[in-house]
């Protein structure tokens, strides 16, 4: 079973986007090599839904975070090695030797660059293997959570013919026979082992770069527990992409699994919701989260509705688009899966009376699902009063502090329902009415 999240939720949380500044991916993407980036892509798009697997990956990240190991490989040499290893034809030693002699002959006669290229790739491979050997021995001494993997790879390295490659000096002349011998070893006999080593290099790239980001930004690693416990607890959770973001605490569990959020405009409701969603997603891929402490039950999916646009081509009005979104969420929840559901400003595309009835009915409906975590924000504070009869709803709000006539936002969560209404004040502060009336 894979983790469920749809494109809309991914977009709302701004998770992906290699080239989009401000996306979570962009924040973490500090890998040096192409293969590292590919692995990172894969981790990002495949969240885990097994607590043990998450904790295993977290332990590795934590180990690299503490050990201060620097990534020893050079990106272009690694990609040369990958080209070399990947372009295998599984040919016999004889064919390889014959082909290399032909390449060498052609290089002498014409401007054929293949022989030189082969040499370059081979040298890069030898250098990278040497560095990898050093890295493995270092890791073995550190005795980290990767021990089994390290041992397996060291066994490969200690093999006699690989040792010989490792001991060769690339600055010494190398006969074509030697080149063809190594070629055969690397690209044929030990090809699978070499691919495994490349995979290991990609892994270390991701581990080192991500744990470095985590260290620089004071992120922490979340602890996963089984989904049945339905627990979510975090201290000082914040939005990872906002500099100077204000952190807040959250504690949800069975019996208090619904969070009802209110607050004035611009008080930070949506940002808080996005922080929760991003934190949860990061935790599920085993990455560090922007918090000082976090424990969570593994979810089977995240469902958010933070910015729903209407679609005239499909004949949807804004309100109907929201209704469809809620329906999708209801169908997902009805399967009995353990989900995180988040609705920001539910039914904002409709009139107040409808929004009141709708928000109340839907929140009541979802709150019956004790296996889900449910977060809803609204500006219709009257709904809160009506929800107080439910035992498992907790109320929080984002306050506004008035300084003279200017509202200031603390972005700090308080318990209860807000009574702030600053919309008109913002309009006045912007001096809009005077502008319109000015001739």
């Amino acid at each position, binding site marked *: 079973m894979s983790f469920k999240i749809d494109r809309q939720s991914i977009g709302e949380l701004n998770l992906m986007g290699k080239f989009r500044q401000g996306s979570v991916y962009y924040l973490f993407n500090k890998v040096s090599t192409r293969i590292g980036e590919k692995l990172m892509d894969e981790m990002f798009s495949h969240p885990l839904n097994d607590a043990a697997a998450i904790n295993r990956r977290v332990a590795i990240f934590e180990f690299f975070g503490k050990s201060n190991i620097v990534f020893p490989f050079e990106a272009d040499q690694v990609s040369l090695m990958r080209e070399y290893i990947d372009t295998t034809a599984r040919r016999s030693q004889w064919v390889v030797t014959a082909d290399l002699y032909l390449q060498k002959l052609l290089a002498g006669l014409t401007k054929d660059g293949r022989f030189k290229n082969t040499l370059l790739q081979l040298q890069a491979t030898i250098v990278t293997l040497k560095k990898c050997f050093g890295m493995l021995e270092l890791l073995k001494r550190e005795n980290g959570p990767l021990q089994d993997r390290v041992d397996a790879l060291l066994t490969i390295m200690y093999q006699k013919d690989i040792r010989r490659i490792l001991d060769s000096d690339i600055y010494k002349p190398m006969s074509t026979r030697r080149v063809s011998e190594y070629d055969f070893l690397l690209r044929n006999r030990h090809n699978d082992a070499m691919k495994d080593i490349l995979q290991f290099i990609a892994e270390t790239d991701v581990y080192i770069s991500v744990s470095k980001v985590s260290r620089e930004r004071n992120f922490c690693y979340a602890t996963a527990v089984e989904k049945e416990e339905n627990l979510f607890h975090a201290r000082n959770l914040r939005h990872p992409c906002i500099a100077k973001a204000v952190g807040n605490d959250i504690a949800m569990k*069975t019996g208090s699994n619904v969070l009802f959020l209110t607050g004035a405009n611009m008080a930070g409701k949506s940002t808080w919701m*996005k922080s929760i969603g991003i934190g949860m997603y990061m935790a599920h891929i085993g990455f560090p989260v922007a918090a000082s402490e976090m424990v969570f039950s593994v979810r089977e999916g995240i469902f958010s509705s933070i910015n729903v646009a209407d679609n005239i081509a499909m004949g949807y009005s*804004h*309100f109907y688009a929201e209704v469809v979104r809620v329906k999708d969420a209801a*169908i997902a929840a009805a399967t009995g899966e353990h989900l995180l559901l988040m609705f920001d*400003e539910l039914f904002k595309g409709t009139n107040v009376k409808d929004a009141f009835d709708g928000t109340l009915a839907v929140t009541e409906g979802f709150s019956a699902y004790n296996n889900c975590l449910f977060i809803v924000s609204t500006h219709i504070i009257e709904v809160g009063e009506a929800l107080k009869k439910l035992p498992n709803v907790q109320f929080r709000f984002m306050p506004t502090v008035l300084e003279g006539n200017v509202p200031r936002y603390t972005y700090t969560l308080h318990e209860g329902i807000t009574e702030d209404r600053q919309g*008109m004040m913002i*309009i006045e502060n912007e001096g*809009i009415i005077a502008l319109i009336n000015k001739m």
Partner: protein
Amino acid sequence: MYLQTDTQTMDDLRLFSKADTQGIYDIYNHSFTRGGQNMMEAMFRKPLNNREAIIRRINIITAFVQMKARFPFDGAVLDQAEKYISFDDHPDGGTRVSLSEKEVQHGIMSVIALFHTLRWYLESAEIATVKELEEERLAAIGVLNDPAFIPVFNEKPDARISFAAITAFDVLIRNKEKRKVLQLLHFIYHIDVYVSVAQVTLQHNLVFPVVHPKGTNILKVDGVYHPLLKNAVANSLHMGPSRNLIFLTGANMAGKSTFLRSFSTAVYIAHMGFPVAATSMEFSVMDGVYTTINLPDNLGIGASHFYAEVLRVKKIGQELSEGKSLFVLFDELFRGTNVKDALEGTLAVCNAFTNRKDSKFIISSHIIEAAEELRKKGSAAFYFLPTVMNGTVPAYTYTLQEGVTDDKHGMIIINNEGILEILRQGNKGGTRLNKQL
């Protein structure tokens, strides 16, 4: 000069296609050449704000409609000629590449073919009847009759040309007289745009608007519908100085946004001098068109939805304070805030808008309480899109009526989708705490 507008408006009106949705541009754009397409796109991006220019374009397209014009050139030949002529042998920096013999030969042959067709077309009776194009037509004939081009006309359109002659023609067309050839191509692209719009006019039964001078404050649209919708319902709406603000109400899905899109699309397209999807239209030229139908909030710059709306109103306020006459549209003004703020904000902004008699405003809202207050202002008019209930199933007429409605069918829609039913019957996993639900 051009009509003032912005990307928000263009996105709202869906002028250009996006991912899976068709744009208004796609309806009008049936041009045969790439150059024509680019020119059409430029027209869509820059509507006019000058009455003479708009009328001129309308008259030209009307003339083409009347003669049921067809595009006289072969699109493939034109594209080939364009590719050839715009090839630069000496790009600034970068490696030098040159055209192959074959490309040069084909290019020259297509240019020659084009010249022959063009001369025949320019001297035909049809194009001569378009008064507005007389000047351009004579200019183009003048270029064709330039002594430099005599050898071009000495060749037969499809004749093979010798190697030596090709070199000579290449120098002539792509070097010496390049500017003139480009000028002719430009003229052909114009014809392309006009002919394709004329064909669309006939095909979709579009009408040409009547243009009034700036400041006369007329905006009358009858039978306007959304050109992208099949079986669209037509509506009429008249605005003027004594009714410069329309307050629109109606239930969800009653068709408010679609009506607003069709109406403002007509206003926008009319300023391009193109025919509109309506039965008749009269308008005074304005300085700008600004719509706000789908406003995204932007966390990147730290703005919430409500603040985005406020900034948008402020931007329009700034334009108004410079004395410009605008067409302004807000769908669901201040929906990103609570009820009380939305009421106060809508009232304050609408009241201020009604004072600007030279501009036109359409505000759609769910806050019917605001309508009561606004009635005190003489220049606000009220319309709604009605809902008819057949039992529990709402039906919509999509026809505009005067007045205010407090229709709301949100709960009915939620119930009809069966959301609460799904939640009630779903697998709740853990133990139920709330037996009463």
